[in-house]
């Protein structure tokens, strides 16, 4: 076993004023793999995502991505390493057009239109060198192509402000923005939250296509149907800790997992409604 994982997480913890939101978590994600993180509300899944993508800093532990440490980098350096994420609550840039939102996703890939030094960047913006213009046009074409992946959902709204989009379309836009980064690891935080059955099914197909194209994906999701269908491996979190890990089939029958879900009254109903769609 000389193969190193794409993402290696070792003993990661995040302490919020005495509350361990993430408690000594370790796991790997290999290139091309599809890993899901599930767990009851408040289990620490989103905090874990924040730690991996630099939105938050861990209290302890290490994160290695492609063999290089991520902990200690500035939050804006994570994108340059090839990590892209969507946000649980939806954080599109409301007053930017759909196209502009996706183009921001490609920000870290800019070379000619984003010189390293500040004065250079200012002058490039003012003068618009042919190279910078060409790059802008190229990224624009790519962005339109990404938006077209969602069929007729976003393309007709290319120049509309993101704030005018429906909830489901905002989630699609978030994924489009993340894809524009050409990520080597894509982190999706509840991409189907608030979507109806048709929209969820459509999203499942879309994510499946991304997986088939070889993209490495880390997913947080409550809809277990989706998780079971997509995942190569599932990690179960509860109270900040990893309580189980394995293939969907293994995790499904793990007594600790069942306890984590059914042992709490408030989640019993969630799971039953889940189960009514597809039996676990």
């Amino acid at each position, binding site marked *: 076993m000389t193969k190193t994982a794409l993402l290696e997480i070792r003993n990661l913890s995040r302490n919020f004023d005495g509350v361990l939101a993430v408690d000594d978590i370790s796991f790997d994600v290999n290139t091309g793999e599809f890993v899901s993180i599930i767990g009851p509300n408040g289990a620490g899944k989103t905090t874990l995502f924040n730690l991996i*993508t630099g939105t938050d800093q861990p209290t302890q532990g290490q994160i290695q991505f492609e063999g290089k440490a991520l902990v200690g980098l500035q939050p*804006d*350096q994570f994108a340059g390493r090839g990590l892209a994420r969507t*946000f649980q609550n939806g*954080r*599109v840039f409301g007053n*930017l057009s759909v196209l502009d939102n996706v183009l921001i*996703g490609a920000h870290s890939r800019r070379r000619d239109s984003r010189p390293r030094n500040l004065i250079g960047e200012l002058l490039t*913006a003012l003068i618009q060198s042919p190279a910078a213009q060409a790059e802008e046009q190229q990224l624009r074409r790519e962005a339109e192509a990404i938006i077209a992946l969602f069929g007729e959902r976003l393309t007709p709204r290319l120049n509309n402000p993101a704030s005018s989009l429906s909830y489901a379309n905002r989630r699609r836009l978030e994924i489009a923005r993340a894809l524009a*980064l050409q990520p080597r690891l894509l982190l999706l935080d509840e991409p189907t939250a608030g979507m109806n059955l048709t929209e969820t099914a459509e999203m499942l197909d879309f994510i499946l296509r991304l997986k088939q194209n070889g993209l490495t994906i880390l997913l947080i999701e409550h809809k277990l149907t989706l998780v079971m269908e997509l995942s190569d491996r599932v990690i179960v979190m509860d109270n900040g800790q990893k309580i189980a890990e394995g293939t969907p089939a293994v995790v499904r029958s793990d007594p600790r997992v069942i306890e984590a879900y059914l042992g709490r009254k408030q989640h019993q109903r969630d799971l039953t409604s889940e189960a009514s769609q597809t039996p676990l």
Partner: protein
Amino acid sequence: MDHFLHLLFDQTVNGLVIGNIYALIAVGLAIIFGVGNLINFAHGSVYMIGAYVGWVCATRLHTPLYVSFVVVIVVCGLLGILIERFGLRGLQNSARIAPLLATIGISFMLDQLTQIIFSPDPQSFPNPLPQAPIVLGGTSIRPIDILIAVIGIGSAVILFLVLRYTKLGWALRATAQDRDAAQQMGVDVNAVNRTAFALASILAGIAGMLVGMYFQTVYPTMSFQAGLKGFSANLLGGLGNIPGAIIGGLVLGLIESYGVAAFGSSYRNLFAFVILIAVLIFRPNGLFNRKRQLPPEPLTGTFIANNRLIRLPRWVIIAAIVIAILFPLVVNNPYLLQVLTNAWLLGLVALSITLVTGTAGQTALGQAGFLAIGAYTSALLTLRLHWPFELALITAALVTGVLGTLLVLPVFRLRAYYLAIATIGIGEIVSQVILNWDSLTNGALGLTNIPPPSILGYQIVLPQHVYWYSLALLLTVVLLQWRLVRSSLGRVWRALREDEVAAQAYGINLYRYKALAFAISAFIAGLSGAFTAHMYTYINHETFTSSTSILALTMAILGGMGNILGAIVGSLALTILPEIFRGLVDYRYLFYGLVLVLLVRYRPQGLLGTE
């Protein structure tokens, strides 16, 4: 040594007395911040009006002291209710900066009204208390000192009892903790807000009257400094923290008193602003609160409304430019040309604000500081080093760009109204440094005989030539800014305005792009300031005040935030309208304040829409 101890004692008494005043102001701000989550900029004006009401009672009505206090309490209490009605209610769902802007507008109106009614000149306020100091073993205390101390401590105790033991206090505290939950539980939140504003305004009014008696003078401009110092005191103790506000007020009073004793009275105002900035940088939650966690939700820091942009056809814009250029050939009225020249120069300031606040989302209220840096740099380069005007102008703008960015750099991580306050503080610090750096700036006397603008050695003095010169500067900046805003750089700025966390996750270095936005903004403001200095040929530390910053912000909001054309439309409208209605010229700040209040309430997207 004995002398030193006496001095120390006197300064301590002075500091505690003034500290008591600051504490009264700060406690009011804390109450309002607590229930309304609002920094009330009109608070200093209420304090000033309290002083004037006391003055009217003492010098016109000749009421006994206790009656005067009752009148102050009634008038300021009612004023507080009015401010709540127009500054807060109806803005609950607006951008978080909206109520702050509304209260700035209200303070403009109150200050100007006072000036109109009582003249801008200071009025002498006779102190009815016995003047003879009470001598206590070699040291002495005046009766007014004791009165202020008694009222200060008395108010604190009464307030504590009200908050702790009455139903009203219970409702106030409930609203402060969770507005929506309080409402659900049957608390009339509007009534609570009204009461909080009334209570806070009464405290401010009393403070104003006491200060009037203490210094035996009242003047309309006492409001701004007092409001900002009350805010500094409140911040020192932690925003919204009432005991903290009292301690903050006393500490600020002591620091100021010792500082004046050590450095001289011209430094008086510097201490509060340095403390303000230092607390914002190092302990934004005050001395007694713990550090705050990452805000969970996007917190838009500026004033951008979702709206449809109104695009003017290209030919309209070109026609407008042509008319502007040809105007002096047709109309040869020097006064009108001067007014329009002012509009172009203020238009530059509005452009500088619309870039940093509109496009990049960083609320900047300290442009006056940038104007002053540009003005002094260019004036000094031509006066002392005899540089040619053009070179001095560009150098001044560059210096302002660099210096301005360095000044704002420490407060970059602040957002929304914290940044707004910090930039005001930085603007004030610039003005105070200019005042006190005698050897360079000639201190309070200012710089005179600044050479007028020139081109290649030819002096530009004719009104139409100055007009064209300033218009050329404006059009150049418009062109450059237009290119910037439409480039990928402009897109990055707008992204960081919309959501800093998401922008960062996509590789946008916040500091880098904020620095760039502030640098360009300061550059443009510096250019305007420098040109203005040469046009006036005289400047001092008060040529550019916070009112200039607020006026330029109002112009930017009027036109539509981030909207380049809007900034110029806003500037033209606010410069020319008071002139058209001749009667308005004297009341222009009343008009500006009203425009700001109405805009924030009814048309936050401005005339042309935010971009």
